[in-house]
């Protein structure tokens, strides 16, 4: 074989050119796009619809201006799953991704598994521990806490026994007076209600996709509480309408309730404002006619985290925006004006707002009231209750296929609640099989109905 007959250099050139050409093309595709819509110095922030009073969240984001950078708030949809779909679709393939996502904590594990969330460093150490934990997946912080949401029991009349029976350990004794309003329509809200019904034991049971419980284990943890709720629904202790209620239905029912009958509603802190400022919920002396407290065994932590896209065009500016949105002043304003529960302990100290010069938050609290300071004091009490509820909050299972897991869990659990009689062991075996498949991301074999 002579060198002339078998020249190597054309082979090397051919090989190199092919690989280099393809690599260059993919590099060009991955490079930050220059033709993205909007201003190049603008950080895009994707979120669900902000329906708070005066769209406080939008206002706070849009008002940000730092070293020539501004932020554009993109509201996607009122339906959380639709907002998730737009965020996921855009970040997956987008040359122009949303730089920052205001993401429902329930979807964080999914976004991390997909590679749509980048690891972040918390801008400071003043966050509340539970919120920080909600933004951490497998030991890495991917979400910076932004808004917390933890349910409270809002009561009219004496409901201690009722609350304890529905959400606590109380099981003995006769039927307590009054009725409870929960959200058990087939949507994510039902999942958090069911987790609260069953209690904290259920969370670790569903948190490892590789080690999901068998039918017997699942039955042992889940069945007693689901049966208690099934009975409560049957006897009217839990309002029968709850099976078709979402948050807005529950609030409507609570607001139109007769004040004479005891009633308790499980709802988020965001509804406090509309009850607190409604004169129908005050007596002749101006005192509130409803009370509120944390759920006895903890409520499920909701809310949102700030996620920075791995493909953001300006990471430094995105980080500065995140830092700004988590300052005590901004968090206090979001709380007082928009009813977004804060993720910083400092923002719950309403009595300190004056000293700290959180003027905008105070203006929102005082409004045109004749006795504004009493309103501020009332809101301060409420803030302390929310903070207490935060400390005892439960995290949802942080698994990539959470939404599928949730769909299957509530389909089966709601079947129990709607049943005429207790479900047998075989039902829980199927329940467990379905959960195992859902946690691994597998489609249901024969429809989503359970049992």
């Amino acid at each position: 074989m002579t060198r002339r007959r078998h020249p190597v250099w054309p082979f090397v050139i051919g090989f190199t050119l092919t690989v280099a050409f393809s690599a260059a093309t993919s590099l060009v595709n991955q490079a930050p796009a220059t033709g993205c819509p909007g201003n190049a110095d603008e950080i895009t922030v994707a979120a669900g619809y902000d329906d708070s009073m005066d769209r406080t969240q939008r206002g706070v984001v849009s008002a940000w201006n730092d070293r020539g950078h501004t932020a554009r708030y993109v509201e996607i949809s009122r339906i959380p799953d639709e907002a998730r779909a737009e965020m996921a679709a855009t970040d997956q393939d987008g040359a122009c991704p949303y730089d920052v996502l205001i993401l429902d904590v329930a979807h964080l594990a999914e976004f991390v598994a997909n590679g749509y969330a980048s690891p972040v460093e918390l801008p400071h150490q003043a966050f509340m521990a539970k919120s920080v934990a909600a933004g951490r997946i497998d030991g890495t912080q991917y979400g910076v806490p932004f808004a917390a949401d933890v349910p409270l029991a809002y009561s009219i009349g004496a409901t201690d026994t009722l609350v304890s029976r529905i959400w606590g350990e109380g099981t003995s004794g006769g039927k307590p007076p009054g009725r409870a309003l929960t959200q058990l329509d087939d949507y994510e809200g039902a999942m958090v209600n069911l987790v609260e019904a069953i209690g904290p034991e259920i969370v670790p049971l569903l948190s490892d996709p590789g080690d999901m419980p068998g039918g017997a284990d699942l039955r042992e943890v889940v069945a007693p509480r689901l049966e208690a709720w099934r009975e409560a629904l049957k006897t009217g202790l839990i309002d029968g309408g709850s099976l078709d209620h979402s948050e807005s239905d529950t609030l409507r029912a609570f607001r139109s309730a007769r004040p004479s009958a005891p009633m308790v509603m499980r709802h988020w802190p965001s509804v406090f404002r509309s009850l607190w400022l409604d004169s129908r919920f005050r007596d002749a002396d101006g005192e509130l006619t409803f009370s509120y407290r944390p759920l006895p065994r903890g409520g499920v932590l909701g809310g949102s985290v700030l996620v920075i896209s791995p493909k953001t065009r300006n990471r430094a500016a995105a980080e500065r925006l995140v830092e700004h949105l988590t300052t005590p002043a901004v968090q206090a304003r979001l709380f007082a004006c928009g009813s977004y529960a804060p993720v910083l302990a400092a923002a719950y100290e309403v009595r300190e707002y004056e000293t700290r010069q959180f003027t905008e938050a105070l203006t929102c609290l005082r409004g045109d009231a004749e006795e504004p300071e009493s309103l501020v004091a009332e809101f301060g009490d409420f803030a302390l209750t929310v903070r207490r509820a935060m400390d005892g909050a439960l995290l949802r299972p942080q698994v990539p296929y959470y939404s599928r897991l949730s769909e299957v869990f509530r389909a089966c659990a709601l079947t129990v609640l709607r049943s005429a009689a207790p479900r047998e062991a075989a039902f829980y075996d199927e329940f467990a099989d379905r959960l195992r498949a859902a946690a691994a991301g597998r489609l249901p074999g024969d429809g989503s109905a359970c049992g």
Partner: protein
Amino acid sequence: MSPSGDAELGTREGARDGSDARVAAVIALLGILPEIALAVTGAELAARWFVRIAIGVILVAAVYRPVRDRWRRRAARLPRWWPRGEGSSRSRRLIARVWPSVRMGAAGVVAGGMVLALAQTAPAGGRLFQAYFGSCPMPRELVLSVPSYDVPAFGLLAREFTDDRAVNRCAETRLKVVASPPVTGLLTALRNGWRTPDGVRLIGPRPDLVVVESRDIADLLVEGGVVAEDVGQVGHAEIAVGIPETLRNQVERETGGVSLDSVLRFYAGPGRNFARPDPLITGIGLTATAGLNARRVFPNAEAAEDRMRELPEEMGDAFWKDQSDPVSLLCNLQRDYESRRNSLLRRSAFMLPRHIMEDYNNRTGQICPGGDQNRGRLWIPDIPSLAVLDYRAIRPAWPDRESAGRNAAVRELAGWLRSRVATPSPGAGPAPGGGALAATMAAIGRREQRLDLALVLDGSGSMQRHLPVTVRSVGEIVDALRPTDRISVDIARRPSRDGRPQIYNAYPSDLAGSQGDQIVGYLGQWTPRDWDLDAASTIAAMGNRPMDVMVIVTDTSPGKQADLRRITAEVVEQATGKPSDAPVYIVNVGDTACPPALRSGEGAVFCVDAAAFDVTTALDRLRELR
């Protein structure tokens, strides 16, 4: 590595040729394998064509030598006078010199292609491995937008598509099915980047594929320049004529032979009508109307429109809403209206997809809440259909999230939907032409009595006491609007006692059908607690907005500086002097009566107590003026 072939063209002979050709074929085959892998996985390789050419070079090299030798052997047996091609010997020498390098270069390209193909297909291989030996890999997110009444049906199709494509029950795609905006607003929505008219919000997740009811609607969108492409027909339905059973005998008797024309002319007669889904919201209604117009049953499109609008006018506000959904429209046959309304509805022919009417007849109880199969049945005569819906899928252009992978997945979905299109029955009439559809749309537009209502809420703290009345009044206003009317909500206030007037736009002007319920829901949590902005300043601040009517909901601020009784003259002056001639209604939700000067109903401003406000009559009067 050396490819086969003639390293020195024309000098080598015998067995070596055969072995070189075999090696060449092996290399080419190796080059083809990644091509096959890429075709199977759908992954795109930037250098694919480069590699294909190189494979071609090697294959040519492999085939060239035996062919040439055979030609030479044959040439040797030719007569002497046969041309031997000596003149091209120089070029042959040149080729002989270059050929080995070309071949080696081609081999290099193929080798590079194999490496790239391996890199490209590795993730797909990894996903396959994961699907069988671990948790499912995360699926690709796709959004499919379909006509609102078709969301459940496409939801089932989406599930079927996902199941079909799943590997070991691991989905490759996660398909979100969402409702499209009304057919007449689709083009605007796409032009606005799937945003609300004010550009502030998206109207939902941006769709990868939009399903519209006919080719002509798709053409309108493609011509509008906002769509990447029309990816083909994905469905088929015939719009048939359904007749309430109670009229069957009369139709058979009086038409003298049931045909499409005779039935249509029968229903065009006095005291009868046609029921159709709202043509401004659904492509079904639009296509059915165009089909009817094509039959020239009425003198012209405007006359047809005038006649067909009589039915919803007769049936009232709720019927306008029912018209946006074909099933709700049909379910009206199950309800008991007062006799006059009942009579007109039951004397109307329904222009709807045949399968929906058949479904209604067969499963009335499941389709209509509380429905009874023995009442309100439809007879669908065996006559040609009125028109055909050739559902098309279009792919909007979202340059910020284009990628080869997404395009491939969307095409796959479109192809799957295309493969499921039923074959039209032989008697099916054609879809109305594009011109007919545009003309129909124009005629409907000319006859439309759409209202643009600007709702302004008094945002002062004193309104807290009147919230229940306010919410009820706003609910009544929203209920009285038709789905294609527009409504906006503003809150008039001062942020402090001496603060500047502020009009806060809570909801920009949009279709009542889209945001009416949201507005009522918003008011459920609304907590007014700012300072009064008087009605005169409110009118002045809102005056430049385009609108047909302004409705201010206020407690009239009794006893305050903004008290309506004190500023009556200014209010009249502002209402009269504002640029638009839209009337102003002040809906008083407070305890103090309206000032007498504003109660007459004459002039540009009218104050009415909430309990006495007949909103339907007021809006109907405004529509008549249009």
